[in-house]
Every structure is written in structure tokens, then in C-alpha cells.
């Protein structure tokens, strides 16, 4: 019931009334879908606990989570904002390259591997955040590290850089 579509008599529904003053204000994330997708694994890496707290709160308050989980929601948003902020501070060029690539390529991650590797390396060097996809099969190369992407339109050439894996680069050192 709570998920039904609202029907309004005007398309753009503007209600600028702010939240009451006793609710701490939080700045919304303000990023569009491509930067969010680009930073999603780093958000997941740093904000895992906050995200889990929030989802647990929503599960424990069925139907009332909108009111009861405001505090957890603020934490989630603050944490994600901090990740975006840090990436912007340290890896702005790589980040922008990657999300603009995603924006141009229909949000298909496999079209933008070289940019992604550069971003992952920069983020790992500066923020120690690592892209990790859980539950991948052990006996094959993880899909984000494959130098040939079957579905990509453009072949990854030798000049496009090497796949970056945090564990592998540490083992080399």
C-alpha cells in the first residue's frame, strides 16, 4: 500500500515547507545517477554498516520506517556524501572521466573499464576504498578485471592501462 503510485493533479509538486527545526538538517546527496553508479562500490565499501543499520531499521519497523528511521537515513546520506566529497577532492579527474563515460554509454559498466581501473587505483591509493563484488565465483577472473570485455563496443587496447586489483597490487609490493 505504501508503494502505490501517487496521483496528483499537477505534474510538478512543489512543497517547500522544510522539516521541523528539531530534526537535524542534512544536505541531500545531490549527485545524479551516473556519478552515483560510478561511486556505488566505494559508497558500499565505506558505508556498509550505516546502510545495514538503515535497512535493519526499515525491516524492524514495517510501515513506520519512514518516521522511525530518519536518524539512520541521515547517517546513510552523510556517509555517502562524505565518500563523494572525498572522491571529488582526491580523484576528481578520474571520477569525472568514468561517470561521463557511463553517462554516454547507457550506464553500462563494461563499456568503461579503462576509466574504471584508473578511478579504482586512485581511490584505493588515496581513500583505501576497494571495489569488491561479493559472491563471485572463485575460479575465474572477476568480471571487472578482465582485459577483454565480451560485450563492450570498443576493444580495450594495450594503451588503455591495466586492470587494477587492490589485492594484486599489494602482493606485488
Amino acid at each position: 500500500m505504501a508503494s502505490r503510485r501517487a496521483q496528483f493533479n499537477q505534474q510538478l509538486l512543489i512543497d517547500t515547507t522544510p522539516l521541523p527545526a528539531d530534526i537535524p538538517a542534512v544536505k541531500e546527496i545531490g549527485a545524479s545517477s551516473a556519478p552515483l553508479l560510478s561511486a556505488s562500490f566505494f559508497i558500499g565499501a565505506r558505508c556498509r554498516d550505516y546502510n545495514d543499520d538503515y535497512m535493519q531499521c526499515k525491516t524492524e519497523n514495517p510501515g513506520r520506517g519512514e518516521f522511525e528511521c530518519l536518524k539512520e537515513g541521515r547517517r546513510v546520506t552523510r556517509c555517502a556524501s562524505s565518500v563523494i566529497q572525498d572522491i571529488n577532492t582526491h580523484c576528481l579527474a578520474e571520477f569525472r572521466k568514468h561517470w561521463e563515460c557511463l553517462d554516454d554509454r547507457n550506464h553500462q559498466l563494461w563499456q568503461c573499464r579503462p576509466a574504471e581501473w584508473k578511478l579504482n587505483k586512485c581511490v584505493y591509493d588515496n581513500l583505501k576504498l576497494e571495489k569488491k563484488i561479493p559472491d563471485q565465483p572463485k575460479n575465474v577472473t572477476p568480471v571487472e578485471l578482465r582485459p577483454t570485455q565480451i560485450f563492450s563496443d570498443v576493444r580495450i587496447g594495450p594503451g588503455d592501462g591495466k586492470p587494477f586489483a587492490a589485492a594484486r597490487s599489494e602482493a606485488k609490493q
Partner: protein
Amino acid sequence: MAQDMPPRGGYEPVQYKRNLPAKGFRPGIMLLGMGAIMSYGWYRLVHGMREANELGREKMWARISLIPLLQAEEDRDQVRRYWADQKREKELLGENAKIYHTDRFVKPTFAVTPPPTTN
């Protein structure tokens, strides 16, 4: 009058079979070739499907990391609108009527909005 007789030694055999050269490879070879092409196609397909599964997993985990963030923003907005609505109702009508027989948060089906403002 002499009767019309078959020629000496009998007639030539009648050619009822078509005399076409057998073109192409032997059937066995053709079958083997088809099998080879199909195997290669399946090989590529299986690899593609496995990669597609992995890409799907990647996409799903990216989404899983983002869902709390997006949901939190949406919830905050809904609560803000709900409380603003309640306040407006209180000012206009003097009391808040409980319109649903439930404590759950119900997304409004109809909403009264203030006149459009520019900010």
C-alpha cells in the same frame, strides 16, 4: 510386309535416372562440419552468458549499495511533505482527522499543495 521389329541386340536402356554430379562434401563430412560450427557457437554463447551473469551481479551489487541512500532521501522527502500537510490541515481545520485505520505510513494518493512558489 515386314513387321517393325526391335533393333538387333535390343533397345538401349531407358535413362530414367537424372545424371547429376554429386556436389559438395560427403554427408558425413557435412554433419561433422555442422557439429564443429555449432560447438564453436555454443562455446562462445556459454562464455557470453557467464560474463553476462557476472555483469548482472556487478550491477545488482552497485544497486544494493545505493538503495539505502536513495530510499533515505525519498523517505525524508515523504515525511517532510506529510508533516507539512498535517500542519496545514491543523491550521485550516483545527484538528488532524485520522483518515486511515492504521499506524503505517500511507503514501498520499491525493495531496493538497500550496500554490506554486518560486524560491
